[in-house]
């Protein structure tokens, strides 16, 4: 392409130095675009509250919610409740993901194991989460064990399903490469099937973490004395919508941050994928 030809477009072409300088701004703008809608919602919410279109005891203003959260942060109750919720979630996620990894690997790798275990697990998957609550309370009491188990149940199914389907769906052609190199069942699993299904597994973990947040709220609402779920029910009982909305916001922000971290990790681990565009977290 001649310089003369390119010259016609010169007003639209950045100098090399400028192109480099613009790139980080562009990236920052692309990353920040995801904040646009939440900020717009908050502004709209503040506008509605300030005009008195909705009564304050039904929907407190964002400023009122912020003041409540600040007050909870100052007296230490927010950190304590967040810590209690985080601990339950972490343990539930760990146990659920671990059990799902074992069962998903087993049923993904072995048709016989799938035929044996999967029908039961699929039936259990369709049990509504709250249906487990009375049974877990009877079996394990109202303390943390029942709550952690409920969260583990929530985490289990997305991880299990994704891993099982991921392993069972590994390209036969890659498995044949392992077989012609003399790989037995375990080396084949370790060197071919698990790496190949890692994107599906990580998707399952992200889904499991999302459900973990939902289940931790349910678990804490069924009779806890601390945690964000308790803040929700407590706010309802004492007529403090600002506390309820504040807890909801903390759930949303913490859930988003943890999903972002997991998505960044998944993106780094599966950067080998030849996709049109990497599923970058926004």
């Amino acid at each position: 392409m001649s310089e003369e030809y390119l010259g016609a477009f010169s007003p639209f072409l950045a100098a090399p130095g400028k192109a480099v300088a613009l790139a980080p701004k562009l990236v920052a703008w692309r990353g920040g675009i995801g904040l646009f809608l939440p900020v717009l919602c908050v502004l709209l919410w503040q506008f509605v509250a300030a005009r008195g279109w909705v009564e304050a005891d039904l929907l407190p203003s964002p400023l009122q919610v912020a003041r409540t959260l600040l007050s909870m942060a100052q007296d230490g109750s927010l950190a304590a409740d967040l810590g209690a919720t985080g601990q339950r979630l972490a343990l539930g996620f760990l146990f659920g993901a671990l059990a799902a990894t074992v069962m998903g690997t087993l049923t993904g790798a072995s048709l016989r194991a799938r035929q044996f275990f999967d029908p039961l697990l699929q039936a259990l998957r369709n049990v509504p989460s709250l249906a487990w609550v009375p049974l877990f309370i009877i079996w394990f009491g109202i303390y943390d064990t029942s709550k952690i188990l409920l969260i583990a149940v929530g985490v289990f199914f997305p991880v299990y399903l994704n891993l099982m389907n991921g392993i069972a769906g590994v390209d036969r052609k890659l498995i044949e490469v392992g077989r012609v190199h003399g790989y037995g069942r375990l080396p084949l699993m370790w060197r071919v099937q698990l790496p190949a299904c890692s994107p599906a597994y990580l998707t399952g973990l992200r889904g499991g973490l999302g459900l973990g947040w939902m289940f931790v709220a349910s678990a804490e609402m069924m009779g806890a004395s601390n945690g964000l779920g308790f803040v929700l029910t407590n706010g309802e009982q004492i007529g403090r919508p600002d506390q309820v909305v504040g807890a909801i916001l903390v759930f949303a922000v913490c859930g988003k941050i943890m999903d972002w971290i997991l998505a960044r990790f998944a993106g780094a681990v599966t950067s080998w994928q030849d996709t049109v565009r990497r599923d970058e977290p926004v």
Partner: protein
Amino acid sequence: MNPALQVQGLVKAFNAIPVLGPLSLTLETDGITAIIGRSGSGKSTLLRCLAGLESPNRGTVLLGGAPIRPEHVGFVFQEPRLMPWLSVRGNVAFGLRHLDRTARNRAIDLALDLVGLRDVGALLPKQLSGGMAQRVALARALAPEPKILLLDEPLSALDPLTRERMQEHILHVAENYRATMVLITHDMDEALVLARRVVALQGPPGRIVGDWDLKLYESLGQFSRQRGHPDFASARAELANALAVSAAG
């Protein structure tokens, strides 16, 4: 010369439908044997039986009189089939898990040198062209130093220019790496350029209908068997005629 690979009375059927054999074949220790034939003639099934990817219903595959084992066989598939999460070096190392680090690195370097890809060891498969990926697949098959190298239409998915360059790489490997090489191809020209012997299959069920020794043309040297050479043209005509006769018969 001792026979390297002996196929005796090989029969393969899928769901009771015979696709191959009975077929017997003896392959010598070095040089390329091309197996040609139409789709469904059992070429790939034969190769998969040799590699242990399919179990024959009857017959044996022996190497030097003993049953063939996976470590004896290198296999290059129609597609590169590289592990997308491994680098080029990682892929070449795929069949070298029993070696220590030093021996493994040496084997990787040797194999990448043979296919002319020493400088791209850190790249991922998604960063390679089709021809480069197929050369990595060739290096992966060569790295464990197999006694038999099986090539299942490895050039069929490549464009004509890349295909010619790959043919040169395969000839280079055949000259520098003494192994029994079996090449499946549809392409008569490719068989003539690369092979010392051409075996024609017809089926199903696949049976040998022709077996031509091309050593007659060896005095010309492998690389001089270029398209356009008078001897190449006459060899091709002879092969095509023989194939047509056997197909008609």
